[in-house]
């Protein structure tokens, strides 16, 4: 967060004060514009279908209804998706952090022999990639398709995140390492007992980046997972929103059977809420680490 530069009070010209008011207003409007759609969806998920059709916009529904949530609970698909997404996100993030920190630590040591070679190896992956089809062929010939490994392994390291962690490790005073070495600690012990505990801010923010990516990932799941039992929440969300519209993904009308016609708009909104809430719950806890974790710097050095 940028430091304040007020200090000495210097008189502002009226024109300057107008600018200041304009800036406050603009920021305020921008902030409201970012959250307004969410508030609308949240309110809509508790509203009746009639109100959603009749009233253009509201933040508080006049008639409170849980029908949409009841419908979602009855079909159960979202919750299966949520469960799968929790597994994918938790295990995936642990894999990410293991792969990322163990690669970042050696690369952060300036005395590592072959360091340039390995760093160049990373840089090349940032500049050039084989593309979707060759990756798809590799992943399917490794028989990862229809397992969560297809979501975990190919995204195990994000080079940008790795560089963030590496730069953070590099900033830890070398004296600590020296002292531990004098005490006879191996590189592994130094990494586990000194470097990692001192890197909590960057580990927190990079873990969040990875977790958010796993939670929100739609495309990879669509490519690699066909098994309905392994459906992640984003896929479920997309399908339910299509289905709530009363048509199958192939365009044919749906036979609703015993569940009956759902409150279409409210169901879409309630599903959106259910899929968003988990990420918003952890967000405030990690927000304070953001600025510490995301300094963009040169890759080398």
């Amino acid at each position: 967060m940028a430091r304040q530069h007020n200090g000495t009070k210097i008189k502002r010209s009226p024109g300057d004060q107008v600018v200041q008011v304009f800036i406050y207003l603009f920021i305020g409007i921008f902030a409201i514009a970012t959250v307004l759609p969410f508030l609308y969806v949240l309110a809509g998920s508790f509203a009746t279908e009639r109100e959603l059709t009749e009233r253009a916009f509201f933040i508080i529904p006049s008639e409170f209804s849980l029908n949409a949530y009841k419908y979602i609970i009855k079909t159960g698909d979202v919750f299966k998706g949520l469960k799968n997404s929790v597994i994918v996100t938790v295990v995936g993030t642990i894999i990410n952090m293991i792969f990322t920190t163990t690669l970042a630590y050696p690369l952060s040591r300036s005395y590592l022999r072959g360091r340039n070679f390995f760093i160049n190896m990373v840089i090349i992956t940032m500049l050039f990639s084989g593309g979707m089809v060759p990756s798809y062929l590799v992943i399917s010939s490794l028989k990862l398709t229809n397992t969560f490994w297809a979501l975990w392994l190919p995204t195990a390291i994000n080079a940008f995140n790795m560089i963030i962690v590496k730069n953070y490790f590099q900033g830890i005073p070398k004296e600590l390492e020296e002292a531990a070495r004098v005490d006879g600690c191996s590189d592994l012990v130094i990494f586990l007992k000194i470097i990692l505990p001192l890197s909590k801010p960057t580990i927190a923010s990079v873990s969040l980046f990875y977790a958010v990516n796993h939670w929100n990932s739609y495309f990879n799941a669509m490519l690699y997972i066909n098994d309905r039992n392994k459906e992640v929440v984003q896929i479920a969300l997309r399908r339910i929103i299509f289905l709530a519209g009363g048509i199958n993904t192939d365009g044919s009308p749906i036979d609703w059977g015993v569940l009956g016609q759902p409150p279409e708009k409210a169901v879409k909104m309630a599903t959106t809420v259910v899929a968003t809430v988990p990420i918003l719950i952890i967000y405030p806890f990690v927000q304070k680490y953001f600025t510490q974790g995301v300094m963009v710097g040169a890759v080398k050095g």
Partner: protein
Amino acid sequence: MSRQRGKTAAVVSAPRKKKESFFHFVIAHKWLYILMLPGILYMLIFNYLPMFGIVIAFQDFRPFSADSAIGAYINSAWVGLGNFKKFFTGYDFTMLLKNTLSISLLSLVFYFPAPIILALLLNEIRSVGYKRVSQTLIYIPHFISLVIVATLTQQLFSSTDGIIYKIMEAVMGRGNAPNILASPKYFYGLIVGQNIWKETGYGTIVFLAALAGVDTELYEAARIDGAGRWRLMWHITLPAIRGTIIIMLILRVGSVLNTGYEQIFLMQNDLNYTASEVFDTYIYNKGIKLAQYSLATTAGVFKSSVSLLLVLVANKIAKLCGEPGFY
């Protein structure tokens, strides 16, 4: 982290003897290499193996011509630059190029400066509480999945019950409001607009982080010398984030052909297809859906090569201008 780098750069560390042989170093620091092993294997399998996989751009790749993928590579016939000729002369190449470049250039003009401007404005806010609350709010859309962004967009702009559509109808008159979701004319704006809404707030973080390092005494001193708001911004704030802006710009230039799969895929429909088919979606539609592996890979190779070239050129220019550049 860069702010601490200066302090530690002078400390010469670890190697016990000045001229240790490589072999001895590896033995003494075996853990460093063991720790790196998973990461190196990961890169070899999931980054480098696919890079060799681009050979199929020069083949008529038939995946089922052998039991294993490697066998299929060996069995498939070489066609030289045949796929490239087919790709470049195909009827959709100009459409792909036009759509991709339009979305990228509109992003560069409207979406790229947005977080910089917002960061500069946030930097002018004196009230800590106001600033913290607005920052918390504007970061939120970044954490929302593209599926949800697409859903929200559809709910807001839908021509049957979307609220924004209703507002446009009220302003322009019944029947005159554009159906933004189903018309190629508005697709570029829709995508760039989604990006601005979703990522502007979060994009300020890197610039605010750079601004946090500015010595506040600089502002004091300049203000005592009579500098106004604009001069402070021009002479102190902007130079402080110039390096960050340039790195971000290099990366953006490098991804001119990468519009991303997911966002466009989610907003694509039969009605806006002529504006929404870009290289990335083409690769998916041709390569994965229609199993035309060679043609899709050709498109991928073209895209990756141009991107690489652009990053290298942009980086070089930055360095010639005396900036640290990206690597």
